[in-house]
């Protein structure tokens, strides 16, 4: 006589299905005894008393299904096991879905989609690392949306993936576009010959949208998670991403986007790029460019400039055209500055930038730290000072409302505008506010109806400031495309109709805000 235990991790069944399965098993003539229950400690204890607890079932948890049976031989055990899997499969299909695919574990997902090559993991951080390893062991690339994964685990996953020729995008990777499919927070962009590797989610969204809006397109956009370019991880996936794009026949130009990597990682990037024949553009916001100057990377100071350089290279145009275009943009912004600054009064001195995208917050700080020492932020970079109270602005204030301090127990501000809307009104009410700078990020994962949430507060600002006989310009960049579900053109036109100064990019919006402040000094 032998006892066999089958453990189905993460496969749960309601009592109807479970009893049906248990009944079917017990009705098999060769089954001497059996049970099919969830893996609670108490059920394990009952199985032990019943002589049905096997070593494998000892490891079951509450959300795992345990099936145990007694029979006379190995051959019978194989037959029973096969039958049980049939029962479970049938029950899974009939009881849990309404025609579409709803796998409850990686194993069951792979049964449904055996050819899948990427697993997107978005579960609590403490479980996500193990699930990611399981996916890698099954030969799947991984996009790890989850955060709160230890640095040690990240390194372990990335080293394992590298060894197996796989990718781990993340942890805390919010954006990627693989084979034309937008993953997580991503936009619907044209396909084309520009490949992106980014350790910055919003940065990736901005450059991919600007490229798409210019008429070019994206071959692949690989996110790595922000920690990848720091010393501990050493840029494992950032470097693998560059190599993959270098080998990809559909990629002709490579665009790198990141908050500043550590010098050690920058050196590795420079060395790798040196071996690549394809043109490479790099946007390393707030990084010291001394090291990069010596490389063959075309360095861009802003996300917009990076996208423009990539587009020019993709079209095999002279890069001087990019600088001509930026010059022309400068003239237009200067004209607009003259017009807008004339409407401001003497007390209006400060910029109040309220961002949902963290990378935009960094990029804008880069512009402003050059003009004043009185710049404050909740996520300061360079010479910018830390806000004493993140909920209250001081002088020039540039805030990332997507930072953890603002999002505890709340949706991200790209989805839910309520926190920012309250802050917009508070800033409008401050007589020292000269300009309010905002970002709106469209695409999958973001607020599906941004206008319904932002327009009322803009109207309120106009009413409020008009009562106080002031005018506060609202400058806003809209990151998105025509093909996004929210439609960038519609959003931009509606904001413009409400008097908002809508800019093509965050860089342009920041420049306009900066010129206005400079004009007021």
């Amino acid at each position: 006589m032998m006892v066999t235990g089958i453990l189905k991790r993460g496969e749960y069944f309601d009592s109807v299905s479970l009893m049906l399965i248990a009944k079917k098993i017990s009705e098999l003539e060769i089954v001497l005894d059996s049970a099919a229950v969830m893996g609670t400690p108490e059920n394990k204890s009952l199985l032990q008393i019943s002589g049905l607890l096997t070593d494998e079932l000892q490891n079951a948890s509450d959300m795992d299904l345990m099936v145990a049976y007694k029979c006379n031989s190995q051959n019978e055990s194989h037959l029973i096991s096969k039958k049980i899997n049939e029962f479970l499969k049938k029950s899974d299909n009939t009881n849990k879905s309404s025609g579409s695919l709803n796998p409850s574990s990686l194993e069951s997902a792979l049964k449904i989609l055996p050819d899948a090559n990427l697993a997107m993991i978005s579960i609590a951080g403490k479980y996500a690392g193990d699930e990611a390893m399981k996916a890698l062991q099954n030969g799947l690339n991984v996009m790890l949306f989850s955060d709160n994964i230890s640095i040690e685990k990240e390194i372990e996953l990335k080293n394992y993936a590298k060894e197996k020729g796989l990718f781990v995008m993340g942890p805390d990777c919010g954006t990627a576009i693989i084979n034309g499919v937008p993953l997580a927070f991503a936009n619907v962009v044209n396909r084309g010959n520009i490949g992106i590797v980014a350790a910055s989610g919003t940065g990736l969204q901005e450059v991919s949208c600007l490229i798409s809006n210019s008429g070019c397109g994206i071959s692949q956009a690989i996110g790595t998670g922000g920690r990848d370019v720091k010393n501990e991880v050493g840029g494992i996936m950032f470097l693998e991403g560059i190599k993959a794009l270098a080998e990809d026949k559909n990629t002709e130009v490579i665009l790198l986007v990141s908050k500043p990597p550590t010098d050690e990682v920058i050196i590795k990037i420079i060395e790798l790029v040196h071996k690549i024949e394809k043109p490479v553009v790099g946007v390393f916001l707030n990084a010291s460019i001394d090291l990069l100057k010596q490389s063959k990377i075309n360095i861009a100071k802003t996300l917009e400039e990076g996208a423009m350089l990539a587009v020019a290279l993709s079209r095999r145009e002279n890069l001087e055209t990019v600088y001509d275009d930026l010059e022309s943009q400068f003239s237009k912004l200067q004209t607009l500055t003259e017009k807008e600054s004339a409407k401001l009064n003497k007390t209006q001195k400060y910029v109040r930038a309220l961002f949902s995208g963290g990378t935009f917050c960094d990029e804008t700080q880069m512009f402003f730290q050059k003009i004043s020492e009185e710049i404050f932020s909740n996520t300061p970079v360079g010479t910018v000072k830390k806000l004493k109270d993140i909920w209250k602005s001081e002088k020039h204030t540039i805030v990332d409302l997507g930072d953890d301090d603002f999002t505890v127990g709340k949706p991200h501000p790209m989805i839910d505008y309520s926190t920012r809307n309250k802050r917009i009104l508070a800033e409008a009410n401050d007589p020292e506010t000269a300009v309010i700078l905002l970002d709106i990020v469209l695409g999958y994962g973001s607020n599906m109806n941004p206008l319904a949430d932002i327009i009322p507060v803009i109207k309120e600002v106009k009413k409020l400031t008009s009562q106080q006989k002031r005018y506060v310009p609202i400058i806003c960049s809209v990151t998105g495309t025509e093909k996004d579900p929210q439609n960038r053109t519609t959003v931009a036109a509606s904001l413009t109709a409400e008097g908002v100064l809508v800019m093509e990019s965050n860089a342009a919006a920041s420049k306009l805000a900066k010129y206005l402040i400079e004009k007021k000094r």
Partner: protein
Amino acid sequence: MIKLLSFGDHLEKGIYKVHSRFIEVINFCSGGSFVFIVGRSIGGGPINIVVEGVNFSELEELIIDEDHFLLNGEKVFFETSKKYDSKIKVTDFDEEKFWQNLDHFEKALIENSSDNSLTFLLDGSRKKNFKSSYEIEFVRRFDSAIECFTSSNYLEGVKLIKGIGFGLTPSGDDFISGFLIALNVIQKLEKVDYSNLIAHIYEAAKGNNVFTNAFLLAAKNGSLFDKFKNLIHSILYSGQIEILEKTRTLISFGETSGADQGVGFLFGIKRNFNDGNRNSEKGRIF
């Protein structure tokens, strides 16, 4: 477009991910908190959001905020008029009728529930349906637990049955939930204070299964899902026909979950209401 039919009075703000899926029920979880997105046929509850116009199989993400929720990115405001009240309201009731109605409920439970439910505690002949060694041990545990409960050794009884049985919410936990609901109802009927006992039972029953814990917590707080609330209301104020109908509705919840909760409730009431006087008078089972 999502149509909101009802939303629970114990929803907690947060970003929720799918915990488990069934037809017309998607259980969302955020840490230890749960929200159940359900169709009309499932009905209201303290942590339910009842909706129409959604493809349940496509639901992936839920965000609950102060005055609205976002389901797969679609924003829906909570309208106060659609707030579900999970508390049972007790006004005047007829004690004799109440006992009669409990008898009707017991009969309805036995006649309508699955052979594998805990109704073997009401009708001993049903024990013959439990044949495998696991099932025999399961029955033996319950018999021992009932002995503990009848000698007021509640915590020992809870330890014997918590986490055992079939389904995502094991039968033992369903029984304990029903028992906690009974204590809450008796508090209202008799104006007695069982809060310490309720708290101790809940603490003893709580385990690693966050899903089961959510049901136990609701029961501890006297927060009722509408199938159970309607049943209790019918036992307090209606008659046999309505009790039969409400019992059948309750039993339709899972193969045994509804019935097992019902058995726990019935046991809790008969054991504790009016110090179990009716129980001893008529020498009833348990």
